[in-house]
């Protein structure tokens, strides 16, 4: 069977890729996508850990999966809101590139 | 009836100005003169209170009197509003009463936002009364801050900026510098107070009350090394307010920017707060620390005297000259304190009172001159005597008192400081006597340049001092001459106060 550590490495890799995407991409939509990747990486790690625990007691490995479900719901809500904001941004500044949005500059 | 007055006297003394300033906040209108009349009323009461307190102080018994303790924070901190006056604070309370009343009376010339001006002025004087009348370290610091902070607004809003050609002194700069200096000073003091509290809490007798700490220090709770590093905190912390040499630059700049009444209170009373702090906290609680640091303080005091006198010699602005002369006179106070000698410290306290009166009078007159001529530059002002004889006479008396002419209060105080200093640090005392001679140079230069000589036509239409200024000035002159001729009533109280300082 596949050891837990591999899953953790996979999630780490995926998380780092997502992080790079958030930091490097110019378009806001792509940043949202990268955030999705990061969330999924966390999920992998969570579920891997949950399912590798011996099924002791009542909540054996259900909790891991349930939390993952909640993460997914939050992610969904987050994407909805993020894209609404991006639409608003696009409508006001007619651009989606993060470089050009710097009203909060010093 | 009178002994329960004693009970509540000091509390009243603090609350009357405080309540007055609070009530005034709700008075209608800004331009109306009512707020000025109300302020006179409040200042009058506090003057009467301070007079009663001073004259009911029984100098035979000595020690703390009018003792009253209001529990504030029991338990480990043991902070309570412990009121009490001894021989040193009684004359200073009287001084504050007199200077406050004089300051409020001559603030007739304040035009905009009269109400807020008096709110702050009364709050400031409540702070000063509080600092002198309290026996608890925490509240001493509390009122010390209350006395200092309104200065910022008073100078910042009602002050005046002057352009000296080569450099500009705006009132904001003056106010900001003053507050930053004083707050920095009070930080040091705060550290000192906490150090005291922590050191005292070793044997679970931690308290903020002065007498408690004094007993602890007698019983050897504060060892030598502790005292030696804590005393400079108080010396420098309070010294900043007392115009100690390297930290004095805020005082002349503060004076130049401040309106008349604020200058009177600032030089008249506020600088004494610093010196009083050194005595009350530094010398009472840390006698060995005081012992080791005294050579430093007395040399700084001498530098103060000479430095102030010399730099006053070449100033061209009236308020700068008086500002630097206060630095020089505060130098005498610091020297007096540093002599740790019965007569020297007594001289220091008397100098505080006499210098307070002198400088308040001088600022009052400079204020009236500035109000009429709108300039304080002595190269432009000359020959005012023919137009303003009363002002000139008062200014001459104040000037002569400050250069130590016998028969006026300045001489008695300086003489005692010299006597004390001669016994302890001879060479520095001789330097200080030379400093006194230097004072004569810049005072006479000032008198000859601005008041004597024939008036040029620009000052042809000057009116003499208004009846208000004349009465206040006259009162100050009378007190200065009275102390100069017969200082016994004041000295009796001061002697008893100085007697209680350990190590003197």
């Amino acid at each position, binding site marked *: 069977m596949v050891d837990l550590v591999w899953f953790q490495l996979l999630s780490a890799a995926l998380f780092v890729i997502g992080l790079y995407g958030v930091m490097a991409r110019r378009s806001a939509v792509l940043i949202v996508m990268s955030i999705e990747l990061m969330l999924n990486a966390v999920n992998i790690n969570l579920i891997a850990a949950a399912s590798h625990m011996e099924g002791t007691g009542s909540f054996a490995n259900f909790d891991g999966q349930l939390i993952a479900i909640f993460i997914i719901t939050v992610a969904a809500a987050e994407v909805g809101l993020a894209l609404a904001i991006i639409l608003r941004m696009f409508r006001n500044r007619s651009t989606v590139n*993060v470089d050009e949005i710097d009203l909060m500059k010093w | 009836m009178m002994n329960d007055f004693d009970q509540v006297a000091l509390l009243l003394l603090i609350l009357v100005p405080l309540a007055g300033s609070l009530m005034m906040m709700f008075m209608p209108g800004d331009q109306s003169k009512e707020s000025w009349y109300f302020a006179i009323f409040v200042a009058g009461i506090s003057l009467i209170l301070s007079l009663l307190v001073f004259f009911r102080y029984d100098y035979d018994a000595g020690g703390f009197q009018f003792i009253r303790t209001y529990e504030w924070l029991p338990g480990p901190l043991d902070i309570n509003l412990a009121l009490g006056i001894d021989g040193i604070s009684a004359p200073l309370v009287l001084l504050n009463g007199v200077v406050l009343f004089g300051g409020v009376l001559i603030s007739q010339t304040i035009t905009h936002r009269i109400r807020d001006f008096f709110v702050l002025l009364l709050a400031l004087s409540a702070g000063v009364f509080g600092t002198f009348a309290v026996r608890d370290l925490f509240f001493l610091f509390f009122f010390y801050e209350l006395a200092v902070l309104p200065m910022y607004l008073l100078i910042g809003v009602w002050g005046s900026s002057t352009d000296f050609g080569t450099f500009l002194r705006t009132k904001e700069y003056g106010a900001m510098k003053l507050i930053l200096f004083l707050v920095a000073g009070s930080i040091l003091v705060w550290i000192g107070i906490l150090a005291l509290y922590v050191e005292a809490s070793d044997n679970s007798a931690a308290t903020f009350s002065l007498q408690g700490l004094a007993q602890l220090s007698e019983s050897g709770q504060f060892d030598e090394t502790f005292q030696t590093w804590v005393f400079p905190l108080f010396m420098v912390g309070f010294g900043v307010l007392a115009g100690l040499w390297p930290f004095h630059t805020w005082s002349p700049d503060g004076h130049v920017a401040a309106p008349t009444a604020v200058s009177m209170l600032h030089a008249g009373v506020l600088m004494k707060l610093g010196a009083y702090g050194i005595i009350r906290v530094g010398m009472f609680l840390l006698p060995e620390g005081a012992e080791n640091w005294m050579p430093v303080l007395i040399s700084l005091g001498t530098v103060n005297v000479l430095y102030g006198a010399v*730099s006053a010699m070449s100033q061209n602005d009236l308020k700068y000259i008086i500002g630097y002369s206060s630095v020089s006179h505060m130098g005498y106070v610091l020297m007096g304190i540093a002599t740790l000698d019965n007569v020297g410290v007594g001289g220091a306290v008397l100098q505080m009172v006499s210098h307070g009166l002198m400088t308040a009078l001088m600022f009052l007159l400079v204020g009236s001159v500035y109000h009429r001529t709108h300039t304080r530059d002595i190269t432009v002002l000359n020959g005012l*005597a023919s137009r303003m004889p009363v002002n000139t006479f008062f200014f001459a008396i104040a000037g002569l008192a400050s250069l130590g002419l016998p028969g006026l209060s300045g001489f008695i105080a300086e003489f005692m400081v010299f006597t004390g200093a001669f016994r302890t640090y001879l060479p520095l005392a001789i330097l200080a006597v030379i400093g006194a001679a230097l004072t004569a140079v810049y005072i006479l230069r000032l008198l*000859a340049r601005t008041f004597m000589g024939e008036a040029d036509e620009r000052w042809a239409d000057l009116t003499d001092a208004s009846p208000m200024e004349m009465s206040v000035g006259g009162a100050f002159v009378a007190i200065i001459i009275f102390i100069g001729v*017969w200082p016994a009533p004041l000295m009796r109280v001061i002697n008893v106060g100085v007697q209680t300082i350990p190590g003197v």
Partner: protein
Amino acid sequence: MQWAWLIPVFCFAAAPVIVIFGKFLPTKGAFLSILAIAGGFVVFWFVFGSWLDADAATKGCFTSANTGMLSCDYERSWFNAGVIGAVGSVSLHWGILIDPLTIAMLGLVTFVALMVQIYSMAYMMGDPRFGWYFAVHSLFAASMLTLVLADNFLLLYVAWELVGICSYLLIGFWHERPAAREAAKKAFIVTRIGDVGLLVGILLIWRDVGSFSMLDAFEAVRTGAMSEGVATASAILLFLGAMGKSAQVPFHVWLPDAMEGPTPVSALIHAATMVIAGVYLVARAFPLFEAYDAVPLLIVAIVGLTTALMAATIALVSTDLKRILAYSTISHLGLMMLSLGAFGYTAAIFHLMAHGFSKALLFLGAGSVLHSTEFQETGEMGGLRKVMPLTAIVFSIGALSLGGIPVLAGFWSKDEILVAVNDNRNAAFIILTLFTALLSALYMGRAMFLVFFGELKDQNSHVHDAPLAMAIPMALLGVLALGFGFITFNWPGSFNGLGDFVFFGHAEEFHFEVWLGAVSIVLAVAAFMFAYLAYAKRSISMEATRSRFSGVLKVIENKYYFDEVYQWVVDKVVLVFSRAVAFFDRAIVNDIIVNGPADITRKFGIALRLHVTGHVYTYTLAMALGTVGLGIFVWVRSV
């Protein structure tokens, strides 16, 4: 005797009354001040009388061990610094000391002050600040009398300063004139520098003896309790104060400029009363000076001699009448100091009084001349005796007496000084003193002949003689200048000479050194003849003598460049130093030490602001780096 303190109190009371109610009183209160000083004069006679019939038994009197004179001391406590009995506490007293020295001084001051005040009634008539003049006049008289009566050094110092302030006010009386303002300021500051020495001396004595009273100090010196170092140091310091007030050499610059004040002021203050305060101080503190091997007295003698010589030479060449008299005063003060330096205690006091009367007389005469001719330059005057006979006579009496012509007061006192110098000092002193006597006769004669003899210039033909109010004081002083000399002889009856009245240690018999007297008479008469020929008759042309000593003359004419040196010192050293300190204070202490940190914090704040770029990705990058840092930190801590 105990009521002697009334004398100064009369005048102290008169001064404020005149200032406040002056406008409403007739003659603006002048009569009140004259009344006060006259009252003082009367009380003086009572004090003199009661002292005469007092003896060691009367209350408060004792024959003092130092001076040997009967002196009475009454004192009351003023205030005490420090609770009595506590360590280091000092109790300060008011007190008066009456002894022959005080009585002599009281007599001189009250009499001359009275004369001058009557004189100035006429002289100052019509001056806008007439009342203020008399107020300060009585304040001056009061403080001078307190100075003379004081029994402790503190009271002496208080009066000393008050006298200084009154002279400042009186010199600068016409403060519209810039010269008067400068002179007043100069006078006060120079005397103030001397006072520093006095105060330090007093405090040194107090430090050693523990009290300010003079009697304790003298007692300590006599019993040897006061160490030699302290005694000599404090004596020299006291002499420093005396030099300031009595215009001895380095401190004499203020007296000639003080002539800017009204002439009666110069008569009273700068001839008869204030300037002798220094001599009085040295006389009063004589036990201190002559204790151990009397080193201070030698200094006093040397300084006195140099002052006398130098001032006499300058008087010879100056042209302004009042300046001549001023320099002659300095010269005679030098002589008094010299005589004190030569243990001539009685001679000094005798010369002090004789000089006081004659110099006041000369100044009043000069005043009446100035009053009517409106200018002071001797060049303008000449032959005034025809139009001002009384002033001429009186002036010449004064001039002759100070010149040393026999029979007149000046001769006897100068002769006494010569005797004293001859007894106690070496030959050099005697020769120089005789030379100074010659010079003083010369310049006195020159002044007299230049003003009153020679032909009368037409522009001052209209000149009228002094009015009555000015004439009487001059006449009275003239009589005294004439007759005062004779009190040195021991008259039959109880009074046997001044030597028996005022002395130090033991009563001195009057003795006349024949050869010394003869030499001084010859010198004086020769000097007057020369002056007569040179200035009245113009037979000896002065230009020839001038050209021969041109080098020396130039130096003397510029008053040995003292003024220029002091001015240079003040301008270059003091003002530059104070400007430097003020600049240092503003530039360095203020702009660098105070504003420096403020600027640094401001710049630091600006730098910090740059990291806010507004771009989202910079913030995410920051977050990433933060996490990495945290990770490493946790990792490092955990390993």
